[in-house]
């Protein structure tokens, strides 16, 4: 089976681009990735594109061929929609396509444009990731759904808003020098605790922002990398995906995220690693509490133990397990359909040494990315390793 190499990466700055189009955002990231990989448009075998609410935000469906066209690529192109995990799932399928020999060169990524619609409309769009019949009809918003999980977590394991605030402080700290991040400023624990409540126990600074942006990767087979003499130091060695019930009410427990546990088990098995081998992670921290859930479900902390990790300094970039050195969704921003692939972009930059925070993790050789859709009803986990 061919192994899968990351030959090139690209991002737009994450933030507010209300006057641009989704296709143009993706073109910027995609062209950067293709140029980084030194790959020509006619070498691309497939385009996999993640996008969540193109129809609602742009009045545009059918984004697959549209974004391929924006890159000057005429290869088969497909859009993937899995809410906030849309491009995590796209990466998963791109990895599989290379592994099974279907493709040697895949451009994969995602884009989203949401800031132009305003808070009301964005809240309504994000809520469509929840169950329309059982949840949205009962006033569940996206922050509200995570707030229910945080409430259940506190009830089961303890923990406080102050513990969660430290996650926000850390991720803002990590984003300071990341030129692609939406929030390149620090926040204090008090700032987080004093911010207006969105859905208790979560406040405005517990939540990731609404963001426009795009991400792209060029994934290639090791054979192609060798033949084309492309430098591709990072290998995707493991991939996992899992689902859960869309509605929280149908789950056995609200304080854990078993889909992540299953996706991680598959990805670690695929890569032949254990949780103890992981040097750093990029996890889906759409809310501060989500980082805690992810760290426990990835097997990096026992249930109930990750809540104090940021407060204790363990997950800072100079700690024992650096988490979200990019700034995470919390500070880097969350252009929904772009997020899953952007984590792989950031992990690649961290591992190959061209990320502003690479110096903090120069010994790292194994990184894991975790992408989650809705309340972790869709999830992907990828293992990236510095190729030996």
């Amino acid at each position, binding site marked *: 089976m061919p192994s899968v190499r990351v030959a090139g990466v690209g991002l737009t700055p994450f933030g507010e681009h209300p006057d641009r189009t989704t296709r143009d955002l993706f073109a910027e990231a995609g062209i950067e990735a293709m140029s980084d990989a030194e790959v020509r448009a006619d070498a691309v075998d497939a385009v996999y594109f993640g996008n969540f609410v193109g129809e609602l935000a742009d009045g545009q469906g059918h984004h697959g061929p549209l974004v391929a066209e924006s890159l000057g690529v005429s290869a088969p192109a497909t859009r993937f929609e899995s809410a906030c995990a849309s491009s995590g799932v796209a990466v998963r399928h791109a990895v599989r396509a290379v592994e099974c020999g279907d493709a040697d060169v895949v451009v994969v990524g995602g884009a989203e444009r949401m800031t132009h619609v305003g808070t009301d409309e964005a809240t309504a769009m994000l809520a469509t990731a929840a169950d329309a*019949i059982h949840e949205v*009809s009962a006033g*569940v*918003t996206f922050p*509200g759904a995570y707030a*229910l999980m945080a409430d259940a977590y506190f009830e089961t394991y303890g923990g406080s808003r102050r513990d969660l605030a430290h996650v926000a402080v850390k991720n803002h700290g990590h984003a300071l020098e990341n030129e692609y991040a939406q929030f390149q400023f620090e926040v204090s624990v008090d700032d987080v605790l004093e911010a207006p409540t969105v859905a*208790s*126990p979560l406040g405005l600074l517990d939540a990731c922002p609404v963001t426009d942006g795009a991400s792209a990767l060029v994934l290639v087979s090791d054979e192609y990398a060798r033949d084309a003499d492309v430098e591709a130091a990072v290998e995707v060695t493991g991939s996992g995906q899992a689902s859960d019930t869309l509605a929280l009410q149908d789950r056995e427990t609200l304080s854990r995220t078993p889909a992540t546990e299953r996706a991680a088990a598959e990805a670690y098995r695929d890569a032949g690693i254990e949780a103890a081998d992981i040097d750093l992670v990029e996890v889906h921290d759409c809310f501060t509490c989500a980082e805690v859930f992810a760290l426990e479900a990835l097997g990096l902390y026992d249930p109930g133990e990750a809540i104090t990790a940021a407060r204790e300094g363990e997950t800072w970039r100079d700690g024992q397990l650096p988490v979200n050195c990019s700034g995470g969704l919390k500070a880097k921003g969350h252009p929904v359909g772009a997020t899953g692939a952007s984590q792989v972009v950031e992990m690649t930059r961290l591992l190959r040494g061209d990320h502003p925070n690479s110096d903090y993790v120069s010994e790292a050789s194994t990184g894991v990315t975790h992408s989650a859709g809705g309340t972790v009803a869709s999830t992907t986990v990828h293992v990236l390793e510095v190729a030996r």
Partner: protein
Amino acid sequence: MSERETASRTHDEFCRAIETGDPFYLACPDGHGSVPPRRVCPECGAQSLTVEALPETGRVQAATVVHVATSAFADSAPYVTAIADFGPVSLTGVVAETDPEAVEHGTDVTLAIQRTDERKRPTLVFEPR
């Protein structure tokens, strides 16, 4: 009740049954509960679902005070959304309570349905006992 009958149960019928004081849930032969629309048990895949009476009282498992709402709920904000355990099933609803901070885990609630013009679907309401 016949096994075929359940395939036609809709969420609307589920809501209307609450309004007429006759709430139900769907049960598979192994006793897993679910609510419509379902054709198979989400837990085990069994296709023979029967209609059973839903316990009248549920208990709040998790709750949040939602301050930033979608436009359909903007007039009610801040309001409490909760998940309550009714035994065979858990349900998600808006708690009818004037003081949102007063809703606690373990609060016993009964079911009601609210219909408004702004909302596409009926709202499941939890009334604290």
